[in-house]
């Protein structure tokens, strides 16, 4: 069953047709990769999923509900969590607080003036946040300030923030961008492990073919705002159009 349905989505920025009649359907429980050369419209498409951009035409349906024109926090409350291309975290707060905040958002909704209780006495939220940090391997550092972390740890922290909400759909925007080979492999292992234990539905936008082919169940190739091919990773590798548009002469 498709959890996210994208139908005939087009978006134009001035003279640039960023997205041209894009159709996608993301199956529940699958890892769906969206790849494409620079400027193909991958990030524009993702921004249409999270309420940052509104497409000119077309529909984006999540779980039977339109995502167009509603605010980012409402989309998150509906069950879509996003990991950003550059880690977006609460830099001045501790790792534990970074994970407690999304947990509070899941428990209390988008607004609650909960000013009398003590945050460190909210045991259910705190235990939950600690368990997620444990799962992702940051438990020992939970009291450290997030800004002091390495880039790789920040990325993992951001994933922990998303996971703590137990989202129905997780959007990862280039989860290994700017990482060393070792960090990239560690992230792949982490995502694989999470896929096994949690069975999350994920949409991954990625440049790195290594990452795509080790994680994805299904791949959509975007070029110049249009989906030019869709298939399983193995078949995408052999697709002539994809080679021309994207992999070029360096095709593996």
């Amino acid at each position, binding site marked *: 069953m498709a959890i996210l349905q994208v139908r005939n989505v087009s978006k134009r920025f001035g003279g640039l047709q960023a997205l041209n009649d894009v159709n996608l359907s993301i199956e529940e429980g699958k890892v769906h990769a969206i790849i494409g050369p620079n400027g193909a419209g991958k990030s524009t498409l993702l921004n249409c999923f999270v309420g940052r951009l509104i497409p000119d035409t077309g529909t984006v349906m999540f779980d039977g509900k339109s995502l167009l024109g509603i605010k980012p*926090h409402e989309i*998150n409350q509906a069950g879509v969590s996003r990991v950003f291309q550059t880690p*977006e975290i609460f830099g001045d707060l501790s790792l534990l607080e970074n994970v407690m*905040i999304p947990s509070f*958002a*899941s428990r209390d909704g988008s607004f609650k003036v909960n000013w009398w209780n003590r945050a460190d006495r909210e045991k259910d939220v705190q235990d939950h946040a600690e368990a997620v940090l444990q799962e992702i391997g940051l438990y020992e550092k939970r009291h450290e*300030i997030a800004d002091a972390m390495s880039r790789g740890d920040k990325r993992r922290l951001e994933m922990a923030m998303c996971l703590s909400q137990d989202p129905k759909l997780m959007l990862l925007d280039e989860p290994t961008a700017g990482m060393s080979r070792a960090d990239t492999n560690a992230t792949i292992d982490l995502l694989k492990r999470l896929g096994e234990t949690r069975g999350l539905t994920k949409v991954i936008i990625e440049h790195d073919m290594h990452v795509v082919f080790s994680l994805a169940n299904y791949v959509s190739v975007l070029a110049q705002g249009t989906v030019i091919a869709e298939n399983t990773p193995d078949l995408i590798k052999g697709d002539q159009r994809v080679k021309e548009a994207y992999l070029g002469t360096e095709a593996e």
Partner: protein
Amino acid sequence: MFGLNRNDTLLLIVVALLTMLAPFLLNPFPEGSSLAQFNGGYPDLMQRFVIFGIFAIGFNILFGLTGYLSFGHAAFLGVGSYAAIWMMKLLTMNVVPAIIISVIVAGLFSLVVGYICLRRSGIYFSILTLAFAQMSYALAYSVLTPITGGETGLQPKLSDPRILDAAIGSGVTPRANFFGIEMGTSWQWDWNGWVFTFNAGYYLAAVIMLVAFYLSIRIFRSPFGMMLRAIKTNQNRLNYTGVNSKPYTLAAFVISGMYAGLAGGLLVAMDTQVGPERMFWTASGEVVLMTILGGVGTLIGPVLGAGLIKYMENILSKINEGLLQKWFAFMPETAGDAVVTVLGLFTGKGWHLTLGLLFMIVVIFLPGGLVEGGKRLFGIGRRKKKAPPAASPPPTTTPAE
């Protein structure tokens, strides 16, 4: 205790002791000694310490937690003051209804102002609040003269209706009181040349300040406070985390507006008069200075900053040239004159110059304000004790006291 952790309870107790013993602590010099003018333990100044402490505590809930820098908080202080004085004119000279109404009116006013100003953030938000405060000042100064008394302001008059008081007995001079205890009541204790003054108004304000301080600790440590701190570090991320940050900022704005209104009401309770200058932009700037000087985002910092500024305003400005000449009479005449001329620039009417210098020094060398200064002093002593740092404990992340 009180639902606080050990450190916060300790802090609250220390602040309670300091405020309760302030008449002693602020009067360290015996009456008649040459240093007696540095004594800050007289009712008027002590009241200002705690009232502006409340103002700064509330401002810090907005600025310290969410990072939204309001340049118009004096407007809420002023609105609270006008509301309080009208309560005294119409209802009773008892300060309780006046204080309650000042909080409510300032809260409603800040709801309106906040709703409009919070559509923008950063410098645009600051400018909008400044514009609102200056508009309020202009309204109070001229357009709304029938309500605000214009330039002269408002005082209780014998001819005011005062519905509740009239039932008790008329023809009594209107004095602010707390169920019969007049705010101006003072009791003096002479002890070996020291004179300690205990003032009813001060103790009422001090107790209210302690309650306000306690509530601010609760806010700082709550999930609500955590959300506010998250707004300061990354508001965009918070929105993508499923939190609607707008109502949070508005709630913080209204809470700090209510604190400002409370301070305004208390000012009227202590000294029953109001003028529009209370809303002038310099008054809004002053609370920003207090908060930064003491330590933004710390619990105790704003109170310290408020105390320091009010002390300097009242004590430093009293040091005039004649006094300086007396102090430096022991020096040769030309040298003495030179010293007096230089110091004269920084005292008396020039006390703002000292404040400016102090502010610059704090911002450049102690960005965390007086609290950071205190911590560094304290930290030096601690570091010397534990020579081999085998495993450094994880730094705590709760905002400093």
